[in-house]
């Protein structure tokens, strides 16, 4: 089922949670709502589910207006961050709940319910816990039971609110891969909320990046990572280096470094922000000709498993920059703290300060998890 959201607004008192959301979620896709806490992503999910009512705006399910439908009639499966299992029921009864509460005419027989529940427990690979109670399960198991319970009613849409947020890193990674495979088997339109950019990049077909009640960008993981539409998206997805700079006649100047930026041909002496990902920087021992490198001193070397991260102090400005390189590359030329090097950005993205898409950087520097 496709979901269309048009002009959605929601306030809580004076707090604007959603400020004009327009979004189309095509049928059968797995979509991530990604953003820092307080950006409105959970509110949006709850409004889609019918657990919250929007102040204005519409939600269309398959082109039909569902804005006034009760949560019971929306045919959505909802998975909560803290599982929200029924503590006094066995796992079996938890999963069977949605079938048992159906009106008599549509309620399956006991035998059908049993078969269905067992099939679902099989699907989440937990058929052996059917007679246990939720308090006897681990967090990962509880969340899988919550998912089985949501799937039991054959929902048209699956909505997951930070489904792996309460789990430890290892279980979280396992479960998100498992969710991806499950989605590939079932093809049920799914929306999940997360503040973890890695999770969104790994699992989702489409990522909706949200910030302060509005949508910053919608796109595939590759699009939002490689071509961020706004500085916020750039900062929020992955680590960044920010260089304050000036753009003039299609060239950006950062310290002694000059890079051509044809998209800003018209700008004249405009203050700008240049972003470079830590893995898009080469570190050289010798300067290159023609203002393509910046001098810097290495202040810290740390090993992060498969990567080595260098912290550099830029020679003229004293600003700190981060560079990431593979282990092999580092091993080929092991740089030491105190070495004088020359950095050369391979890829650099420039946003002008007076661009309407660019907010004052003060706002989002604090609340992005990816920084």
């Amino acid at each position, binding site marked *: 089922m496709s979901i269309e959201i048009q002009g959605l607004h929601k306030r809580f008192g004076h707090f604007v949670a959603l400020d004009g959301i327009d979004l189309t979620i095509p049928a059968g896709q797995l979509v991530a709502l990604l953003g820092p806490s307080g950006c409105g992503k959970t509110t949006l999910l709850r409004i889609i589910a019918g657990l919250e009512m929007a102040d204005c705006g519409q939600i269309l399910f398959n082109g039909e207006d569902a804005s006034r439908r009760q*949560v019971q009639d929306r045919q959505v499966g909802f998975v909560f961050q803290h599982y*929200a299992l029924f503590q006094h029921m066995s796992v079996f009864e938890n999963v069977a709940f949605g079938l048992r509460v159906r009106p008599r005419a549509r309620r399956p027989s006991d035998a059908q319910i049993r078969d269905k529940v067992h099939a679902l427990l099989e699907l989440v690979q937990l058929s052996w816990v059917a007679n246990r109670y939720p*308090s006897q399960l681990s967090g990962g198991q509880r969340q899988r039971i919550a998912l089985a319970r949501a799937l*039991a009613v054959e929902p048209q849409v699956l909505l997951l609110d930070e489904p792996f947020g309460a789990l430890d890193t290892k279980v979280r990674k396992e479960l998100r891969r498992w969710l991806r495979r499950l989605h590939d088997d079932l093809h049920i339109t799914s929306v999940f909320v997360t503040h973890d950019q890695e999770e969104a990049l790994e699992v989702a077909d489409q990522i909706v990046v949200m910030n302060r009640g509005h949508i910053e960008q919608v796109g595939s993981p590759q699009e939002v990572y490689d071509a961020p539409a706004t500085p916020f998206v750039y900062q929020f997805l992955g680590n960044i280096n920010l260089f304050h700079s000036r753009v003039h006649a299609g060239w950006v100047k950062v310290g002694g470094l000059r890079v051509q930026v044809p998209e800003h041909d018209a700008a004249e002496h405009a203050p700008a922000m240049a972003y470079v990902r830590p893995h898009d920087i080469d570190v050289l021992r010798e300067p290159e000709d023609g203002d393509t490198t910046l001098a810097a001193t290495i202040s810290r070397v740390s090993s992060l498993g498969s990567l080595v991260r260098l912290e550099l102090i830029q020679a003229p400005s004293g600003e700190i920059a981060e560079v990431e390189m593979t282990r092999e590359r580092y091993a080929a030329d092991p740089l030491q703290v105190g070495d004088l090097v020359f950095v050369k950005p391979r890829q650099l993205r420039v946003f002008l300060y007076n661009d309407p898409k660019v907010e004052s950087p003060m706002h989002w520097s604090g609340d992005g998890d990816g920084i």
Partner: protein
Amino acid sequence: MMFRFRQPSVLPGFGLTLGFTLGYLGLIVLIPLAMAFTQAFHLSWDQFWHTVTAPRVLASYRLTFGAAFLAAVINTGFGFIIAWVLVRYPFPGKRLVDALVDLPFALPTAVAGITLAAIYSSNGWIGHALKPLGIKIAFTPLGVIVALVFISLPFVVRTVQPVLEDLEAEVEEAAASLGADRWQIFWRVIFPAVRPALLTGFTLAFARAIGEYGSVIFIAGNLPMISEITPLLIVSKLEQYDYSGAAAVSVVMLVISFMLLLVINLLQRWSRIRNGWEAVT
């Protein structure tokens, strides 16, 4: 499996605290109760049996336990509603209402009895209004129930309230998203979660109502065979210097109360295990 009396623990002092607990319980509860037994067995078995099965005494058991049971049942229902309203809905004066619930705890029971008798007697406010309908409350078994409902009200409210407060809203939302209507959410999700607390509240209210004396004697009228409760019977025996008779009736009451509370406790344990709150041991 070997029974292990003493579990290793980070907090020392098991021996001391257990000793204190047993000593205290013995001093405060067991010794006085044992005295009732010794006093009662000054009677021969025939005398004892005759005393505790006299028709007037039997009628008083029925009234005491029956009225206490009904009062506890009534309070289980209304106490739950009061707790629900106090937890779920914000309204002006909520704190005041909340404090009001505890008043029956604090009020001397005699004051409660006199007030209730005044209001429910045939020339009191409520008694007067009910008179044309043919309902008499004061000086009837109904009056006893009213008094017991009054004094045991706080128990259910105070046991259920914290449990309701702890119920996650998400659980109800999950049930709603699975298609359950309000009734189903209440009966299948909320009520089972609250049931153990409700049973505890019921037990406390019941126990309190069985032992109540002060408020009942004013409103009951104390007519033998009709509205005379067992505690009053014991007191009147004492007033006639029939100490052994009083002790005999007390012992019977004690044994019945103990059995009832034991049964309720077992019931509660069974209900908890069945609902997965506790692992089966």
